[in-house]
Structure formats: C-alpha cells, structure tokens
C-alpha cells in the first residue's frame, strides 16, 4: 500500500511551470529518493505534500485519503534551508515545535529526554540555539523533525553540514525509522547515499518525472551487460577466439595477484552464457555484473533528456 500517492499534480507560478503532471507513489515503510537537478521542482513537490502550497491540478492521497490539514501532524519535514529561533533554548524550542504538531507537553518532554540521551546531548537542553555549532543545530533539528513520530518523513539534504560520524548516526536513525514502519521521502544530490538508502526513486527534470521505479530495477534497466571476471590467469588471448558470438572481450586490469577481465554481452545473452563459455578454459574466482552507479544514471538521464529536448 502506498502512503503517498500523487496523481497528475501540476503547479505553475505565473508563466513558469514548476510541476508538470507528476505522478509518484511512495510505498509504506520504504525510503523514496526524490532526485533531480537544482530547480527541477523538488521543493515545490515537497511543499505540496506539506500543504504549504496547493497544486493547481491533480490530487495527493495520504494513506488512501485526499490530503487534508490534519495530515500535517503525521508528517515530519526537515527542510534544506533550515533554521531555528536563535534566542530560544534548544529543549524549549523542540517542545514548542512538537506541541505545534499536536504532541502533549509531558509526552514531548519525555520523548525529547530520550532523544537527547540517545544522541548524548543532554547538556544542550538549556543552551540557546545560537550558542550551538551548526552541526549541533542540525542534530537538534533532526530530533525536532522526528519527535512527533510522523508516519511520513521528508528529509531534504539531511546530511549536509554533518561530519562523517554524524552522517552515519543520522543514516542509521533513518534506517531504524524505516524499520519501525515510517515512510521516508529523501531528497538529495548525494547519489552514494541514494544507493545506500533508497528503495525507490523518482528523477524529476524540468518539472517532469523522467525516471522512476525501484532502485535495483532501474539499475538493471540501465545495465549495459558488462561483466567482470576475476581470475588468477593473466593471459586470455588464446581463449577469446573460442568464445561464441555475442561475447566481446573489453580489457584486463590487474591488481595484486588477481586479474580482472571485462566482457560485454549482446542483449540476447545472460551472465550464465558468459560463465559457461569461460569455465572450460580458465579458473574463475570472482564474477559480477557491472551495474551503472546512480550517479551515472542521473547524469546520463539528465543529459539525454536535455539533448532530446534540444533536438526537438
């Protein structure tokens, strides 16, 4: 079941089309990557989900119901442009914002204590936000985002400003939240973290969804049938002429005592065909398909998209 489902939503600002018939589904208990270059319309999309602005056309379904004001209490949003009241104390502020989301006072206090303890920042409670470093403020804001236990979490570049240790801390928290059943929309330019975290993605470019689906499916969709064979045998020139039609040898790389041989297969052949052909002639220690990284997919999709549009 989908927690969020948008059907053909569009939004324009004057003559500028910010979103053009966007249909996206975020399954429950999954992490959904919202990708796209700057200015693609990601923020507009997030603001529509948050009911900060309304779409011109189309509907948004939350848990199967049309989006309504009460749903905001079930959403936690960590914006990219983030900030807190500088003069307010960290603890006080977190409780104030949690209460805005409908959490009772005592409940907010006990939950916040738990989180401050978990992140080992109890002594920040009575510090003014302006006295904390940027990374510390980010941590507080992360806690604020999840304090009201939302069913849907929206993180816009959650790792920016964190050191590697805190990136891991936050990453693990996000994964734990997912395990607890929360659905997460994750907007970022960091493709590496997309590969690590996301189950599904949608790539928005020039106000349209140009690519969407499960991460592994998209990867195989972009597969170029490129394989890596690891073997202690270096010289394979004698083998190449013996290979059947459709298997092309690319090159060989060496590291330490192993050699990596790359083969490209025609689309009608699978990896078993390659293995079958090679096994009689050489020892094979390692084998795997070379899937394109999300980074490559992102870049090639955006560039092809622009190219095709330019051609029209």
């Amino acid at each position: 079941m989908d927690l969020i489902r948008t059907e053909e939503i569009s939004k324009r600002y004057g003559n500028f089309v910010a979103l053009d018939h966007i249909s996206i589904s975020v399954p429950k208990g999954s992490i959904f990557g919202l990708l796209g270059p700057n200015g693609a319309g990601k923020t507009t999309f997030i603001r529509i989900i948050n009911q900060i602005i309304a779409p011109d056309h189309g509907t948004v379904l939350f848990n199967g119901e049309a989006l309504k004001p009460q749903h905001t209490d079930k959403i936690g949003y960590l914006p990219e442009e983030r900030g807190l009241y500088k003069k307010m104390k960290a603890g006080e502020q977190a409780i104030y914002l949690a209460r805005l989301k409908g959490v009772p006072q005592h409940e907010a206090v006990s939950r916040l204590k738990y989180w401050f303890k978990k992140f080992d920042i109890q002594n920040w409670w009575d510090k003014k936000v302006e006295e904390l470093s940027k990374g510390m403020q980010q941590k507080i804001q992360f806690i604020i985002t999840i304090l009201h236990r939302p069913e849907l979490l929206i993180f816009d570049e959650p790792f920016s400003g964190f050191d590697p240790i805190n990136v891991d801390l936050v990453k693990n928290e996000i994964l734990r939240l997912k395990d607890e059943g929360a659905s997460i929309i994750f907007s970022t330019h960091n493709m590496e973290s997309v590969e690590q975290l996301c189950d599904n993605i949608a790539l928005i470019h020039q106000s349209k969804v140009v690519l969407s689906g499960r991460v592994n499916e998209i990867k195989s969709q972009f597969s170029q049938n490129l394989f890596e064979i690891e073997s202690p045998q270096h010289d394979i020139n004698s083998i190449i002429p013996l290979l059947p039609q459709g298997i092309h040898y690319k090159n060989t790389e060496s590291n330490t005592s192993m050699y990596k041989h790359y083969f490209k297969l025609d689309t009608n052949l699978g990896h078993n065909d390659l293995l079958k052909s090679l096994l009689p002639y050489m020892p094979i220690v390692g084998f795997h398909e070379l899937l394109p990284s999300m980074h490559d997919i992102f870049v090639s999709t955006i560039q092809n998209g622009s190219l095709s549009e330019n051609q029209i």
Partner: protein
Amino acid sequence: MTRVKKKTFVIMTILGPILIAALWIVPIYVSTLSQGMKTVEILDETGLFFDQFQSDEHIRFIPIFTDLETAKKGLIASGDDALVYIPRTELNVPVTAILYSTSQTGMDIKTVVRENLRKQVEALKLKAKNIDPEILTSIKTSIIINSIKIDKDGLEVKSSEEISLALGLLSGLIIYMLIFMFSSQVMRGVIEEKANRIVEVIVTSIKPFQLMMGKIIGVGLVGITQFVLWIVFTAAIIFGFQIAHPTFKQNVAQIENFTATAPASSAQSINMNEEITMDPNVFTQAFEGIQSVNIPLVLLTFIIFFLGGYLLYSALFAAIGAAVDNEADTQQFMLPVTIPLLITIILSGFVINNPQSQLAVWLSIIPFTSPVSMMMRIPFGVPVWQLILSIILLVATFIICTWIAGKIYRTGILLYGKKITWADVIKWISIK
C-alpha cells in the same frame, strides 16, 4: 510567548516606567537637593537696595560696606556663594548690577536678585512720579475667558480649548507611536523567522495566515501588557515618591513657577510678574476643562482606534517583512505604507487647531490616517456619524488589508534571496 519571556521585554517593562517617572522626579528632586542655604553678599554703593533683600530659607543676604576690591577678596575668603555689586551711577536709579560668584550660581540666585532689584527700582520710579503703589496694584487686571460649549440640547458645558488641545495632541501622538512601535516589532519578528528559515518548519504545522495573525495578535497583546504595566508602574512610582517626600507636591509647584519664569526672565521680559502670581482660577479652569472632555469616550475610542490602526498597519508591516530578506531592504516598501501616518503627524498642527475643518474630518475618516487624526479631534467633540463611519471604514480596511497581506506573506516567506519589486508583490496578490 517567546516575546514575553525575552529579557529585553522584561527590562523595558521595568525600565520604561522608571525612565518616565525619572523624567518627572529627577529634575524636581535635584532642585530640592541644590536648594541648600546660599549666602549672598550685597555691596550697594547707592545705598538704596541693601535693606530690600529679604533673606528666606534658601538665600541669606548680607549687606557689606567696603570697596569692590576688598569685597571680592572677602568673597573668596568667606566662602559665601555670591556677591552682588550695585555700582553708583549718575542717574538716581541704577539699572545694572554685577553678580560675582565663586561657583556657578544657577538661575535662582540671579532671578531672585533681579526680581528684588526690579521691584525696588519700580517702586522708586513710582515714587518719583508720585504714584501710589497701591493704585497700581488695583489697576492690574487679569482677564479670564471662560469658554462654554452649547450642545444641541442647549446644555451648557464648560470647555477648555487648551485642555482639548493637549489631550488631543497627546493621545494622537501616543497612538502614532504605539502603532509604529508595535507594527515594526511584527515586521522584525517576521523578518527574523524568515531569515532563520524556521518559518519553513512552522508552516508545515500551521497555515501561514494563522502564523501571521498569531504574530500580530501576540505582539499586540504583549504591547498592551507592556503599555498597561508602564502606566501602572509609572503611577506607582510617582505615587510612592509623593508619599516618601511630602514636600514633593510643593516642589512641583515651585519648579513649575521657576521654569515658567526662567526663560522669560532670561529674555529680559518685564511683563512676567502677572504670570508668576498664578491665578488660582487657572487651576479650577483646567480642572473643569478636563471634566468637560468626555474621558470615558476618549479612552474607549483610544482603545478602538489603537487596535484598528495597529491591526491595519501590523498586517501591512508583516507583509513587508515577508517580502524582504533583511531589514535593510524594507525601505522601498516602508515608505508608501508609512506616508499616510507621516502625513497625519505633519498635519497634526492644522488638525488640532481646526478640528472641525474639512481636511481634519476627511483625515479622520480615511482609514489609513484616521487612528491618529480622530484621536486628535475627539476631545473637541466629534459627530457620532463620523465616528461610526470612521470605525467601520477602519475595520473594513483592516480586514481587506489583512487578507491581502496574508497573500503576500504566504508567498513571500518562502522566497529567499530574490530582490522583490512591487510588480512581484502585485503578482503574489493575484495568486490563488
């Protein structure tokens, strides 16, 4: 909430009345302190004046009979405060005197010396012309005009132009100040939230319009609380001071006399005498004047027009705050919005002197100028229909403006780093 807890609020709330009370008390208190006994030596070469100087509890006069040089040295040696030297002149009445002093004497010694000399010179002159001082006193007349307002029912009400004027000007200026102060606070609050980016988080919980209204109402309540506390504290401090210093009231009267005399006497005015002997009639008149003004009406309209004006302007200021990125950019939008208020202040002199003129009536009905202008007119009496029309227009405009401001606010708060023009703002208003 957060605003009330802020240190600055607490400090200003406590400091404000102390400052205001201090403005009243300090000069009076200081003058009480400096009014210790002073000793003034009189060297009168003419021999006409020395016995005219009457010592009182503040100044003691000692006639001395030497030459000037010895007297000067004697002044330094004795440690007395001052030496008045009245030189002999060819004319039988001298008109100049020299005041030597070891320190800055202050106005009071000079004034007392001058008054004494003048009285004696006048008496001498009268004597020379054979005029009995008694006759002169009986001729002196002070004219009091009691103005009486006749209302429609033929009832006569004592009116006092001066009191209405003062009350009108005061309430007009206070309302102007308060509107400006609190509206700017709203604007700064909005800018702060926008600059902080916290607004992005908050609008996911509540609607931008609610946030804006919450801010306006919040600051308004804080403002009213502060204002009420000021009044209470100021009154308490002054009242408390009066109890602690029973001579305070007396001193107030003295100071008033003194300040009234000082500028005039320094301008060498001769006609001051009448004013110094303050007619008790003036007090009763002032009292009746205050009674003639409908105080509950003034208070009620003050609250209505303050609230109306504040809500109107704070909505506009909130919209400005939402449209800009920092306070420096507010200027281009501030000017057109504040012009109506500035106009009322510039024209306040005219309005207060011609409260029933067409211009004044229009200013007090047009919503953007009405809070200040109407308050200036109210003590003079305003027809009920004008008052009601003005209030209705104010409320209507405030509702429309809040609605428009809400639209600007909604779009503006989420837009960063862009220089906003008037064209943009108009576009935002038209966004659904």
